C-alpha cells in the first residue's frame, strides 16, 4: 500500500485499484476543530482536483478535492457523526472516502511522503 499527497493537503492510500482518501495532519491542524463534514454519496463519480467533500471548522468552511478521478465506493459515516475524529486521527480513522481509481496513471503527479513534508515546511 502506497500513500500519495496533493498540494491541497489530501492524502490517498492506494491498495489495488481502490484509494482511501483523507486530509493530512497538517491540514487538520491548520483547520482547527472540525465541526461538520459533508461527504459524497457512494456511487458518485469524482473528478481529479474538483471539490468532493466539505469540511468546516468553528470559523470557516473548506472544500476537499478529489486527488484522483474515479467512483466513490465508501464514505466514512463515523466522521459525519463525530467530526472531531478528523482532528483526532486525520490520516487513519478520520478518512473521508474510498475511490475506485479510473486511471492509476494520475498517481504519478502526486507527492510522496518526503516531498509532501518538504512542501509543508515551506507553507
Amino acid at each position, binding site marked *: 500500500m502506497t500513500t500519495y499527497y496533493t498540494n491541497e493537503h489530501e492524502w490517498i492510500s492506494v491498495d489495488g485499484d481502490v484509494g482511501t482518501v483523507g486530509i493530512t495532519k497538517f491540514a487538520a491542524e491548520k483547520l*482547527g*476543530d472540525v465541526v*461538520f463534514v459533508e461527504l459524497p454519496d457512494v456511487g458518485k463519480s469524482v473528478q481529479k482536483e474538483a471539490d468532493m467533500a466539505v469540511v*468546516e*471548522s468553528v470559523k470557516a468552511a473548506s472544500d476537499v478535492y478529489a486527488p484522483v478521478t474515479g467512483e466513490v465506493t465508501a464514505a466514512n459515516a463515523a466522521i459525519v457523526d463525530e467530526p472531531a475524529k478528523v482532528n483526532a486521527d486525520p490520516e487513519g480513522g478520520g478518512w473521508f472516502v474510498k475511490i475506485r481509481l479510473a486511471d492509476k496513471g494520475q498517481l504519478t503527479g502526486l507527492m510522496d511522503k518526503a516531498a509532501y513534508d518538504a512542501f509543508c515546511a515551506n507553507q
Partner: protein
Amino acid sequence: MADVSTTPLKTTPLHGLHTRLGARMAEFGGYDMPIQYAEGIMAEHTWTRSHAGLFDVSHMGPSFLSLPQLGGGDEAHRKVAALVEMLVPSDIAGLAPGKVQLTVLLDENGGIVDDLMIGRPSGEDEQGSLYIVVNAGTKENDFAQIAKAAGAEAQLCRADDRALVAIQGPEAEAVIAGILPDAVPLTFMTFRRIKDTPFGNVIATRCGYTGEDGFEILVPAEHGAAFANRLLEDSRVKPVGLGARDSLRLEGGMCLYGHDIDISKTPVAASLSWMISKARRERGDFPGADRILRELREGVPSKRVGIRPLGRAPAREGTEVQNTDGETIGVVTSGGYGPTVNGPVAQGYVDTTYAKAGTPLKLIVRGKALDAEVATLPFVPAKYKR
C-alpha cells in the same frame, strides 16, 4: 492569501505575550491579533463558559471626552453628555454616576456608523468626563466625529495605546477578587477608576462580549503584560483568541460591526430599538430621527433575528434565506458553529413578516435548501451580575 496592504500592522502591549504563548496570529482591525492559542477555538470557548478566559481587546478604542474643568456634578455631566448626544440616540445625560451604556453612532440618515460604550464616571472629581470605547476597525472615523462634535467645548483624549484586557466567565469574579478587589462590587454595565494598583491607575468595567459575567480592564501600556501574566498565573484563567471571542458573542446574540450592523442599517432594523431612550424619542433630537421615529411607529421591512439551522451544517455570512415557498426573504450576516449550543447558530436579516421566533426558514447552503427557524437571541442565556 495575498496581502495587498503595505501598512505595517499595529501591535498591542500584549503582543509579546501572545507570541510567547504560541498564538496563531492574524490581522484584525489593523492589528496583529491572536486568533487562537494552542488548545484551539473549541477548548477556549468551552473554558470561557465554565471557568475564565483572558482576552486581549487592546485593539479597541478606549478614550475620554472631558470638559476643560472637571468636577461640577450633574451640571458638568449634562454639558459633556450634550456633546455626544448629537451623535447617539441614547440618554447619556440621564446616566447615573458609574453607569455604562451600549449605544450607536448614527449618520444623518439614521444608519449605524459604529456601536460603542459610553460611561459616566462615578467620582465627583471626574464629572464632566465620559469614558467612550469604540470598535477597532472604525475608531479613526469615530474619534474624528466625536472630536468634531465636541469642538472647543471638550477634549477627546485617546487611550488606545493602553492595554485593554477582558476576563470573562463564571470564575472571572473570583479571579479578579484576588488581583483587583475594588472591582468586585461592580455590577453589570458599571465601571470605576481604581487608583494606585500594582498595575497603576486602571479602569474596570463589568461588561463583556461573551454573555458571561466578567470585566474589561484598561491598564497603562507599561503594566499590560504584567497584568495579563498575573491573571494567567491563576489556574482558572486561560488565554482566549478572537476565534472563540466570535463564537462566544454569536451565541450571546451580540452584533459584530461590519457584519450584523453597518451604515445601511438603522437601530430599529438591527433590533436595537432599546438603545433609543424615551427622552430622546420625545425630543427627536438625534441624527436620522425622522426616519428612526417613523420606523418605530410603522415598522421596518426587514429586521435582525437569530437563526437556528436545524441540521448540523453551519450557515456562514452571506447565506441566502428563503421562506418555505422558495422565495428570498433575507440573508445571514454572521453564522458558524456554537460550541456550547453544540450546533450551528447564525443571525441575519429577514422580512419582518418572518421575524417571529419559531418561523420556519430555508438556508441555501452549497445549493441545498436546509431547514432552519427563527430563534430567540441569545442562544445561550446571559449570566450577567445584576
